[in-house]
């Protein structure tokens, strides 16, 4: 990076703390710390939500209203794809929805978004992959594997690549969108003189963090549901 500009913009992942386990070097990176902060935030909101909903009133207050609206929205989103099976998957979909949404929006808190690290999004993609294949084996048995030879056995390699490319493509999509946002923000804050850093980045944050982050969260959950629905 130093060769590009002297005033070094900061959008890389940094190691904070090194520790050793099983004879290997591991790093606590900015991604890890961002994920801790996001997790604590979600936990706090979850505890507050639990406390509110235990004393739910007929006429909802502000917080209860927001929670009910969020859940209704999530359930409606699931029902457009999964239909009657929404109840079985809404736990998982809701969990990754909240996690990805808060990770994407954590750029607003000045963190480096944890989802702009391929280690995080690849794991999310693998979760989707395992759920899809578990559902396929559970519901179709051997048919899950013989369906790769449909309609003709000649198409087996293409079908196989198509199956294996799914987790790769959804994880890369989320990663690259967030990474481009992080890079644009990092370049803007790092390269330009101080007077353009007042006010103007708000518009960039609105696009890169809010708009892009929300759309990508929606797309990730939507595609996960589409892949799962194919195997039901």
């Amino acid at each position, binding site marked *: 990076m130093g*060769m590009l500009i002297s005033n070094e913009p900061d959008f*890389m992942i940094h190691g904070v703390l090194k520790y050793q386990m099983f004879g290997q070097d591991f790093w606590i990176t900015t991604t890890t710390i961002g994920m801790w902060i996001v997790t604590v935030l979600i936990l706090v909101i979850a505890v507050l939500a639990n406390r509110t909903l235990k004393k739910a009133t007929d006429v909802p207050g502000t917080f209860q209203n927001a929670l009910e609206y969020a859940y209704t929205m999530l359930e409606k989103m699931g029902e457009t794809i999964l239909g009657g099976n929404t109840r079985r998957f809404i736990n998982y979909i809701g969990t990754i929805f909240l996690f990805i949404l808060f990770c994407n929006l954590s750029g607003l808190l000045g963190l480096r978004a944890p989802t702009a690290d391929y280690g995080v999004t690849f794991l999310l993609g693998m979760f989707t992959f395992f759920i899809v294949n578990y559902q396929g084996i559970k519901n179709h048995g051997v048919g899950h594997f013989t369906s790769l030879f449909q309609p003709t056995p000649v198409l087996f390699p293409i079908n196989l690549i198509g199956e294996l490319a799914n987790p790769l*493509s959804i994880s890369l*999509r989320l990663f690259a*969108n967030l990474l481009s946002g992080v890079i644009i923000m990092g370049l803007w804050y790092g390269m330009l003189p101080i007077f353009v850093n007042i006010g103007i980045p708000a518009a960039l944050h609105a696009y890169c963090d809010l708009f892009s982050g929300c*759309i990508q969260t*929606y797309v990730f959950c939507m595609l996960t549901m589409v892949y799962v629905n194919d195997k039901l």
Partner: protein
Amino acid sequence: MNGISGQDFIFGCSAIGAGLAMIAGIGPGVGQGIAAGHGASAVGRNPGAQSQITSTMLLGQAVAETTGLYGLVVAIILMFVKPFGA
């Protein structure tokens, strides 16, 4: 060419390759524009279904964006991970 080591030459070529990889951005731009145009005409024909049309359009656009993002990933790997030359 005096004073340019092989390492510098490789980095320069990587930067050119990163720029070429971003030509991939043309495709999603055209595709998203077509999707947005058809979305606009669909809303013109059926204004009642605007919210559904918008969400379908955004989902399709986000999926169509993927190929451009692959180009971006290749460009970033060339620039920062530096796979060629130690």
